[in-house]
């Protein structure tokens, strides 16, 4: 993480008292960094806060009046919230595509930017947890799902596994980022023993969060559309396209807005990953569709409804075709040689991929799993205004968290704040 030319004292040992005062100073600096900036920064935060407040209010109404204010029914019992949740778990896992090159392949450029991906994981998991909470009929009973305090149906329920892996991933990334930033703040070289094992654990863990989330769905025998062994691999590949796509755009924004040096290598590596994963994702999609449509029968019903409509119902058709076209076009764009030198093409491809995968994991996967219902009733689902507001609010909250994390991390990471010890001298 630390380049060799960093300011280092010779492995200083500090007692608890030193940390008690310097950590407080670290927190104070973090608070200052997070609350001061240009007018553009304030405007951005203001807009996000407004959207988050609209979402908060919509959620409060939903808790008071019941989930009848959503468009979900006993037939389609999960909707926009769980759709977003599924996608964002992928976004959190996608950050690992920066960690692997940085730590396993010792990619120098990636080493300097890997923290951007790790912070994205933190912000994404916060959003995931929020999306689960707003989907609960009884949020006041959230404590029932806590281990030891409530009743934790482990290891049988996949949802309890999800609680463990998501919170574990959050803690891992908080530790790694927090430790590295604090050490940077002190102007010391981070001790490898305190973060490298966690980094390697987080690589395996990132894969586990999306695998477990896929197992939530593919373990249900009564839902033929989800009941496929290909679900978890497809989740992973699509996450490893959407995650890097988001990070590529963020890296460019950071390059423009801050003094952080974003080496071209980072973007080139991420593009290289996207080129492969988007093609694997398409191959898997084609395999899935082949077994569905060539065989036919009851397993193909949901897929047929999704792509072509059935019984005169076709609410999902515009969604899935938008997604399919977006992903195919992005795949073609990404094949452009030296695309990392053609930022406009790259940006378009990234946005298309991001939107395409968001739909594919949401309206294209969660919703058709419920249509037709297990007794073959045809009930469609179109999200209600409340659901859109709550979802937008959570996205805004996630962006607030991500912005603040970057706002604190970048100056410390690039040494613009001056090392604490340097100041004291």
């Amino acid at each position, binding site marked *: 993480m630390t380049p060799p030319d960093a300011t280092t004292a010779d492995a200083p040992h500090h007692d608890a008292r030193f940390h008690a005062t310097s950590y407080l100073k670290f927190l104070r600096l973090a608070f200052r960094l997070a609350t001061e900036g*240009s007018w553009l920064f304030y405007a951005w935060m203001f807009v996000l806060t407004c959207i988050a407040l609209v979402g908060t209010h919509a959620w409060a109404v939903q*808790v008071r009046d019941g989930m009848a204010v959503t468009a979900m029914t006993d037939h389609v019992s999960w909707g926009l919230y769980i759709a977003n949740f599924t996608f964002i778990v992928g976004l959190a896992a996608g950050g690992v595509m920066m960690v692997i090159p940085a730590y396993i392949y010792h990619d120098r450029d990636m080493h300097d930017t890997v923290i951007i991906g790790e912070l994205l994981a933190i912000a994404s998991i916060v959003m995931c947890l929020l999306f689960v909470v707003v989907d609960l*009929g009884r949020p006041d009973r959230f404590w029932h799902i806590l281990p030891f305090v409530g009743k934790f149906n482990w290891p049988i329920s996949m*949802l309890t596994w999800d609680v463990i892996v998501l919170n574990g991933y959050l803690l891992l990334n908080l530790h790694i980022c927090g430790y590295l930033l604090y050490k940077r703040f002190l102007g010391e070289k981070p001790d490898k023993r305190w973060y490298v094992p966690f980094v390697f654990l987080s690589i395996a863990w990132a894969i586990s969060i999306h695998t477990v989330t896929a197992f939530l769905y593919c373990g249900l025998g009564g839902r033929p559309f989800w009941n496929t062994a290909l679900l978890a691999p497809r989740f992973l590949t699509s996450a490893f396209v959407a995650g890097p796509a988001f990070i590529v755009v963020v890296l460019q924004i950071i390059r423009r*807005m801050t003094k952080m040096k974003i080496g071209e290598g980072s973007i080139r590596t991420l593009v290289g990953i996207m080129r492969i994963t988007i093609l694997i994702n398409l191959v898997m999609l084609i395999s899935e569709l082949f077994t569905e449509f060539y065989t036919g029968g*009851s397993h193909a019903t949901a897929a047929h409804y999704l792509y072509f409509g059935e019984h005169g119902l076709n609410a999902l058709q515009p969604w899935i075709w938008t997604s399919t076209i977006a992903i195919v076009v992005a795949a073609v764009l990404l094949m452009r040689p030296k695309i990392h030198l053609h930022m406009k093409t790259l940006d378009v491809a990234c946005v298309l991929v991001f939107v395409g995968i968001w739909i594919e994991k949401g309206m294209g996967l969660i919703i058709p799993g419920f249509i037709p219902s297990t007794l073959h009733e045809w009930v469609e689902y179109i999200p209600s205004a409340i659901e859109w507001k709550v979802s937008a609010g959570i996205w805004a909250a996630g962006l607030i968290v991500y912005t603040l994390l970057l706002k604190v991390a*970048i100056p410390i990471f690039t040494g613009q704040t001056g090392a604490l010890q340097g100041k004291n001298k």
Partner: protein
Amino acid sequence: MSDNKKESCGSGCGCHNGAPDESLFNRRNVLKAAGATLGVAAFAKAMAPITEWKETTSVDEFLQTHYRELSNDQLDEVIARLEEETKKDYGADVTITDHRPQMGVKFGYALNLSICIGCRRCAEACHHENNHDRATSNSYIRVLEMTKGSMDMEKGNVHYDHPVPHPDKFYMPVQCQQCDNPPCVDVCPVEATWKEEDGIVVVDYNWCIGCRYCEAACPYHARRFNWKKPVVPKNEINPNQSYLSNRIRPQGVMEKCTFCLHRTREGRMPACLEACPTGARVFGNLLDPHSEIRKVIDTKRVFVLKEELGTRPSFFYFFDE
């Protein structure tokens, strides 16, 4: 984010010419405090509906432990509180009992498809017996009108609206199959639903968090969610209630068919069976070799729904020869 170069060192650290301004009441800090105050006030305003909702849930309700961990005294207290709340919310005097499973009993249900005429009186009886929300005319039973020559539920229809029985059709009521290997129980993250010794899968309505994973997992569409607080007129409320079955459910939790355990554990028949005009329904103790249900299973050609999923239902369908 870029920084205002006139005021700070450009790092966004908030310092001025490299030295932090320690004054507490500079213009920036005052503005920040004002902004934070406004933010907190707006947040409180946005959350206001929660406080209106809080009035309907009590501290005791919040702290209540799982049904199976309640001592007898605690359970008595809980039941007294629930009866009181029903009186307050619905104006009805009800008796809530805690019916426990009997030893040596495992309930089974069988349904004769040859004589079911699809009149849906079972569904209606279920609706009233179990104090379902009137507006949604909810019921634990769905009756599929099936085309002759197919057992494929995809060719069924629950929204038929013509005199029954229709000559070309047969009818298949579906309710909770009380599986021996219930997917809904496996997936519940908080053990709010479980299978009792007499084979009935139940829900603790005061423990369920409303994640609806069980509803996604059930292959028989047997689970229902309380999307809002059920509305039942005072004079239509069935006052004979049980903790695990037909008491009026809270908003935001799951519920399901319990084979009317408040009746069957007292030795009576389920409401749907009593309502059936053709005698298509057979209910009883699978462990009793002389019971009627055993006679059906031993002598008729019996099948279960979606056997390939391995759920092992305790609900059987059969045809007369």
